[in-house]
């Protein structure tokens, strides 16, 4: 390679990605959009690389990502960002360690499925810039969904001060009671239901500027019939819409209560499948004081998990035995979570649990396509661990100013967390005068606390803003701020 060429090549951001599986592909998908990014993907499997290079303009190299020779040969010395995201923990760690040595100034991101490695990393024994665990991302996603039961997807920003929720508005017209006029319903419950109906009437079908929306929240986007509608003041939330709300965690819960039927606080959860993801979720929920029942079909694994989680109740069961579900009153649970290995099994068990009356089902989809299948079938929340992992990695890989990125509706929309530069043209203009460009500022983090802006508020340099935007406009937004 000539000196001139090398000089040219070094102009861009050199990114190395080890592993071209689902996670690797999702990362490539979101990083290749930036023309400055120069992507190199290394994988042992030729066919995966072929599939990848068919869709994206990347250097696809067949080889071992944990081999020093391979990495050096293909120019890892000049890397700016190194992502090891194969499905095997040990390969990722070795690959990451090699990268620390070959290209010390590159940022290294390593994927792991073992929470223990994550702890080791946090204790700074493994010196990577970032370490991401699919299991932990999944567990957090599950926990967030349980915190806001009606939500399709939720995510938190700014150390938990800002929450973004994607909700389906109950298709029943605003006037009908969420709980059918059942004679046996007790007075108190009926009163609560009436109150909820009243409140819904003041939100749904009313233009946003007049609607009595939960405090400290903004409607960031409305998706109606597959199309996004910008939530201008005259627009109204209609039954059957899918809406994206940015607000405080309290307001997120309030929204969730308004949009769904009979939502209550979840205080006990049944988790089907005590794999790593199931156990990670159980641990997280137990820490929040939620009681957890874990179902595991393998008695040996069940005993192992029972030994590690004294507070959880572990049961040896397949989860598809109707007698068992009946006897253990699975239908009475606040939420049923399905983290078994097999998507088909998860779906079947979720449907069965719904038949038994489970009010909220959350299922892990290992195949990307399963997310749609699950939602079509009526599973309230479908979680795809691999895209969660990719998302977390992309978050870190993005603009250094951009702290966090959430992807919504299969990557069509993104939520950014950007710090405003002082030279930005948008600084010090009141919100109502800001140009509407398909991006919406949902919240401002100023001096560590969250502000949910009104039309009079103005941006200040150094503010962190949480922005909802279409994926294609991300760079535009980043430039504007």
């Amino acid at each position, binding site marked *: 390679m000539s000196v001139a060429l090398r000089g040219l090549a070094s102009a861009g951001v050199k990114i190395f990605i080890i592993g071209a599986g689902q996670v690797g592909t999702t990362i490539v998908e979101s990083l290749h959009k930036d023309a400055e990014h120069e992507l190199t993907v290394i994988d042992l499997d030729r066919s995966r690389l072929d599939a990848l290079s068919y869709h994206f303009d990347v250097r696809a190299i067949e080889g071992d990502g944990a081999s020093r020779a391979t990495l050096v040969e293909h120019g890892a010395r000049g890397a700016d960002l190194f992502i090891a995201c194969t499905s095997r923990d040990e390969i990722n760690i070795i690959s990451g360690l090699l990268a620390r040595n070959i290209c010390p100034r590159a940022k290294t991101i390593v994927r792991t499925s073992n929470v223990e490695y994550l702890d080791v990393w946090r204790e700074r024994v493994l010196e990577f810039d970032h370490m991401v665990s699919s299991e932990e991302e999944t567990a957090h996603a599950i926990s967030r969904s349980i915190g806001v039961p009606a939500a399709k997807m939720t995510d938190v920003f700014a150390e938990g001060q800002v929450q973004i929720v994607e909700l389906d508005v109950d298709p029943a017209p605003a006037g009908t009671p969420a709980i059918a006029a059942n004679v046996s319903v007790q007075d108190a419950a009926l009163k609560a239901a009436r109150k909820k109906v009243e409140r819904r009437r003041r939100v749904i079908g009313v233009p946003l500027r007049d609607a009595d929306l939960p405090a400290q929240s903004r409607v960031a986007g409305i998706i109606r019939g597959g199309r996004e509608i910008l939530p201008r003041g005259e627009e109204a939330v209609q039954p059957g819409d899918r809406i994206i709300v940015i607000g405080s965690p309290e307001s997120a819960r309030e929204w969730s209560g308004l949009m769904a039927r009979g939502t209550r606080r979840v205080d006990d959860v049944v988790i089907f499948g005590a794999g790593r993801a199931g156990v990670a979720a159980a641990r997280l929920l137990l820490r929040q004081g939620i009681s957890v029942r874990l179902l*595991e079909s393998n008695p040996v694994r*069940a*005993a192992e998990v*029972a*030994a590690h989680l*004294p507070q959880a*109740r572990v*049961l040896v*069961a397949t989860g598809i035995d109707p007698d068992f579900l009946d006897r*253990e009153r699975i239908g009475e649970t606040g939420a049923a979570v399905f983290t078994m290995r097999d998507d088909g099994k998860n779906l079947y068990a979720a449907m069965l649990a719904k038949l038994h009356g489970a009010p909220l089902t959350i299922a892990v989809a290992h195949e990307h396509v399963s997310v749609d299948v699950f939602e079509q079938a009526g599973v309230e929340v479908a979680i795809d661990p691999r895209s969660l992992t990719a998302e977390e990695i992309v978050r870190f890989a993005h603009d250094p100013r951009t702290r966090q990125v959430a992807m919504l509706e299969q990557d069509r929309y993104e939520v950014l967390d950007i710090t405003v530069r002082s030279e930005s043209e948008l600084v010090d203009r009141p919100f109502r005068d800001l140009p509407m460009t398909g991006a919406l500022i949902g919240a401002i983090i100023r001096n560590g606390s969250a502000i949910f802006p009104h039309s009079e508020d103005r941006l200040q340099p150094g503010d962190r803003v949480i922005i909802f935007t279409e994926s294609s406009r991300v760079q535009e937004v980043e430039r504007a701020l």
Partner: protein
Amino acid sequence: MTIARLSLRRAVRRRSLAVDVGAGLNLVGALIKWWALAFLFPTAIALGYGESPWPFLVAGVAAGTFGVALERATRGKERAGAREGFLVVSLVWLFVAFFGSLPYLLSGEDQLANPVDALFESMSGFTTTGSSVLTDIEGLSRSLAMWRQFTQWLGGMGIIVLFLAILPRLRVGGRQALFKTEAPGPELATFPATIRETAQRFIGLYVGLTVAEIAVLSLFAWTGIDERMSFFDAVAHAFTTIPTGGFSPDGRSLEEFGAASQWAIVPFMILGGTSFALLYLGIVRRRPVSFLRDDEFRVYLFLLSAASLLVLVDVATEEIASGEAAVRQAVFNTVSIFTTTGYANADFNQWTALTTFVLLGGMIVSASAGSTAGGIKLVRHVLIAKLLRREVHQTIHPELVAPVRLNGAPVDERALRAIVVFAFLYVGIVAAGALVILVDSARADVAVTPFQALAAAATTIASVGPGFGFAGPMGSFDPFSDVSKGAMITLMWLGRLEIIPVAVLFSRQYWRA
């Protein structure tokens, strides 16, 4: 000699035998040979008090010769393994009790002229039981009285554990098995240290506690706080407190000693009944929090307090004693029985049924595993209670998987099963022993009630000491017939070794390949 050797070899060579009896006996011989040195201590005492040292010298030489002979007869068989462990431990304890009884017989002491009585006294000593057939303890010579105390101190330490700590020869395979066979309490965790280290720590603590008690009691003697106490008494009682033995050179046990000494002995009894592993952690490693974190220790303290309170109610309402004396009597006797020590500072035999039942309960409940106490051990009761609770939960949720936990860590299911089996076996043997004593006493015309027979069986197998009736704290086991005494000797032996090692010997599978 040659004949014995030949026949032994023939026995060993029997094809169907799976246990290397020769190797086992070889180890037994080696242990007895070294153990014979223990007789030097009473010899010195006898010389010091101007008494005849011959009973001890002869017994020592006999034990030494026997050991050497046994070792020689089985030469070339120094490879005792885990399987021979049961045989070795069972036999060593039998031989030790036997040779330990020789000084009683040779001294010409009238009270112990009957070989069964001598063996009873010796077995009661080495197993740290504290039951006695003596009717006039003060009548013993000083050296014999001290030997009696010393047997409890030796027995409390454990015969095998001593050699594991000292003899390099025992560093061959099978040490774990030997150690575990002799160590009291269920096998719940793997040892964090080597056996040799564990044995050394145990003995270090044991000697340390004994010295501490001697120091405290002699201080009372010298400063005149307790005028009845002498240096001899201080050593004699320290020798039997730490191993929770209960022998006293005084016929009225601790009754006539000062209140200060009685109070001082209480914490030492409690320490003797505490797991030595826990003591090591809490005292030597200076982590006192571990006491509070230990499930068994918490139950131990709770039971001691609750039982003392119950007995105090009895003492107070029956106006047996008042004020400080009432509290002292209630606490001292309760702690003594629960820790399987067997001292008394009052004849609780005369108190009401409430005390009697609380104390009989104490004999069955007993103190911590891994201590010098006998009995079922608290940890087994704790685990059985937890097992029961789990059983209830599993009846409600048949698919429930819930490991039984001790100090937060799950307990192996096999260990749990062994604990339940042990408890059943234990209760069964107590019942059988009580029946033998009852029937035999009726035959021999000894006045024993069924309750007293039960107490006699429970007190001997749990290595407590005093029973009820004529065998009470101030009484003697002398009136029992030889058959009953024989049954009690067996119970003491079984109780010290926690039944299983002996039960193994009676299993056909043990002997066959």
